[in-house]
């Protein structure tokens, strides 16, 4: 039977097991929206296409399934760009469908035409401009395959309007073959053996776990590996949840705002076992002084990550999970007794700390309370970007994978709220918190309307310092407190704003109000904004100034 392009898309999504898509309609996608009207696939109407991309991203990270977003041609498509770049930098599988003008109109600056495949070229894993309706089904199959295998990433499919109207015989290919795309197979056993020996010989080893552990669903293996070898584990921002941060072997986060003990451990180690991590500059600090005495074992599915920033002695290329399984079998257990003692000393000497002062509300305290109240719950935390994000990373101890969702590589203010929408849609039973700043929340606050429309009981905790806090912190430390364009003299009343959207708003100014407010928020079956009025010039410490060595921390 012949189907139209739009029908083929709906059917293909069903074949891919897609239950929900995030999108926003427009002229070029009218035929698609007409067919979605009858489709069992649930459509979440966002308020800005950036929200659709971030929601698809948050959905993917929270569930492990690919996220799907849809936008119309031109401005709809360009509004997706930040969200696509965000997913690309953090290796999140999303599929973006964009409308396009009719095939014959392409290239003539037609109404609402934008070369979206061209615009997104450097920020997608792959992209397609569909020119033949007979290729549409296979293209969608290919897109899902590419987005979700190997190192995951965003794939864009640009759909000329006439393609969605034209008809073709529908047959969904069970698989597609590529000449130029191979997912790395099993890792060479000789390499694993070599790694196993190097680990046995190490005396000061550190595991450095990144987001790859989570996308590979290898948290259990990581735990078994660390416990068997008694090697301490530090994680990246995206690696939060790959290893329980309350575990005695956990060092918490490493890098610019990592714990002092994680940074010392990495700096003085004799062996770094990097797992699904990419030696980002926010992690390594100054490269030429990074872990000077360490050999490096690097486990990653992307061969291009090996040796990109740091010299690697033993590369293990492949999926983290099976490699860890094999490594657990073969590994020789090193003697880490002395090293763990040293680390305990660092932990005692340089703990994460802040001071609670009478009459002022500290952001760290708020995060600690959010943690206390959600630690035993099925909870998902998303964050915005800035100080709020770093305090969340420091004080919210992630225990399980897919519970801490943050924009790492791109550092996108405005990510947290739409990501929370996606996470809550994907995991309706979870308690979802967006830890936000007063600046970030204003970037995508319109998605509160989405949360209200779909009755999503998201809790938005705004750490309100009336500053673009993180930038202000840099200005305080490096620009002589010249607060150029970082202060908000006037902010909306976030309580009234919440109410205007039909959500619930609360304001908290004192420590003792934090807990009751959180309890009330969680018990409220609607979106809630809590406006935490915090100490205005609180800083995130420790901090490694940009371009400095990891050991050159200030404020610890």
């Amino acid at each position, binding site marked *: 039977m012949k189907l139209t392009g739009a029908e083929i898309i709906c059917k293909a999504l069903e074949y891919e097991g897609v239950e929900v898509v995030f999108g926003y309609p427009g002229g070029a996608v009218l035929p698609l929206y007409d067919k979605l009207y009858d489709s069992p696939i649930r459509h979440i109407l966002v308020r800005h296409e950036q929200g659709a991309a971030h929601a698809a991203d948050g959905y993917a990270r929270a569930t492990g399934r690919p996220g799907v977003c849809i936008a119309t041609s031109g401005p709809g498509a360009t509004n997706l760009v930040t969200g696509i770049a965000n997913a690309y930098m953090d290796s999140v599988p999303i599929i973006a469908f964009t409308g396009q003008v009719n095939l014959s109109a392409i290239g003539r600056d037609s109404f609402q035409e934008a070369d979206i495949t061209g615009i997104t*070229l450097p920020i997608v894993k792959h992209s397609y401009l569909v020119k033949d309706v007979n290729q549409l089904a296979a293209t969608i199959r290919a897109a899902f395959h*590419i987005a979700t295998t190997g190192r995951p990433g965003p794939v864009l499919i640009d759909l000329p309007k006439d393609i969605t109207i034209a008809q073709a015989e529908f047959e969904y290919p069970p698989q597609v073959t590529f*000449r130029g795309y191979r997912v790395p197979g099993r890792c060479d056993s000789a390499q694993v053996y070599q790694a196993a020996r190097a680990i046995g010989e190490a005396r000061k080893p550190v595991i450095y776990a990144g987001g790859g552990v989570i996308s590979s669903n290898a948290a259990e293996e990581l735990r078994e590996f660390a416990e068997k070898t008694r090697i301490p584990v530090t994680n990246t921002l995206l690696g939060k949840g790959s290893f329980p941060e309350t575990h005695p072997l956990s060092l918490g986060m490493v890098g610019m705002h990592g714990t002092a003990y994680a940074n010392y451990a990495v700096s003085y180690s004799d062996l770094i076992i990097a797992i699904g991590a990419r030696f980002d500059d926010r992690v390594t600090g100054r490269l030429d002084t990074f872990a000077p005495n360490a050999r490096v074992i690097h486990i990653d599915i992307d061969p291009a990550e090996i040796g990109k920033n740091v010299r690697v002695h033993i590369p293990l290329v492949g999926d983290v999970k099976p490699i860890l399984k094999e490594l657990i079998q073969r590994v020789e257990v090193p003697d880490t007794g002395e090293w763990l003692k040293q680390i305990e000393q660092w932990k005692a000497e340089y703990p994460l700390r802040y001071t609670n002062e009478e009459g002022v509300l500290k952001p760290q305290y708020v995060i600690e309370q959010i943690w206390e109240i959600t630690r035993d719950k099925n909870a998902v935390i998303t964050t915005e970007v800035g100080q709020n994000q770093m305090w969340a990373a420091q004080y919210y101890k992630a225990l399980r994978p897919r519970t801490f969702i943050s924009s790492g590589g791109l550092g996108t203010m405005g990510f947290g709220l739409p990501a929370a929408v996606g996470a809550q849609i994907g995991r309706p039973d979870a308690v979802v918190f967006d830890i936000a700043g007063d600046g970030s929340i204003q970037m995508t606050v319109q998605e509160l309307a989405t949360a209200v429309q779909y009755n999503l009981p998201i809790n938005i905790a705004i750490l309100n310092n009336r500053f673009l806090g993180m930038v202000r912190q840099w200005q305080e430390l490096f620009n002589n407190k010249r607060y150029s364009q970082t202060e908000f003299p006037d902010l909306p009343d976030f309580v009234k704003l919440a109410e205007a959207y039909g959500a619930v708003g609360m304001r908290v100014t004192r420590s003792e109000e934090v807990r009751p407010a959180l309890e009330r928020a969680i018990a409220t079956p609607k979106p809630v904004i809590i406006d935490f009025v915090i100490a205005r010039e609180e800083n995130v410490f420790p901090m490694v100034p940009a371009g400095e060595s990891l050991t050159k921390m200030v404020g610890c």
Partner: protein
Amino acid sequence: MRHTLAVLVENQPGVLTRVAGLFSRRGYNIESLAVGETHEPTISRMTIVVDGDDLVIEQVGKQLNKLIDVIDVQDITQAEYVDRELVLIKVNAEPSIRGEIMQIVDIFRARIVDIGYHTLIIECTGDEGKIRAIEKSLKPFGILELVRTGKIAMVRGQKYEED
């Protein structure tokens, strides 16, 4: 050091943009790039000359390999290979000096492919050294236009055993 890469890609629109985009985004220096269909019409072959240290070249190869439309990447710099480039050069050539130019053309086994009132177009094929040399030799006459195809290269076949 300069490296010569032989890259097989899907013969599809946009592939060249993806490859060129990758080079500019990651800050790699393309010295030349030549592309054309192979004997298998769905596959094109690019010969890319790129400058960089070993680390950069390794990354170039790996990043190219990540492009879905790239089928194969080989760094043939260390292999025995044949490379050729074609150049067209339009030179000033008043009738009085044409004899001299023709001698140079002969020496380089090049060809004259167009004769104008005041100009000649010379076609020359060869490896980089030869192209550079003919360009240098013709320079004194005044080069008006010059176009090069970029280098193409192919690894030599296995040699017959000598016994």
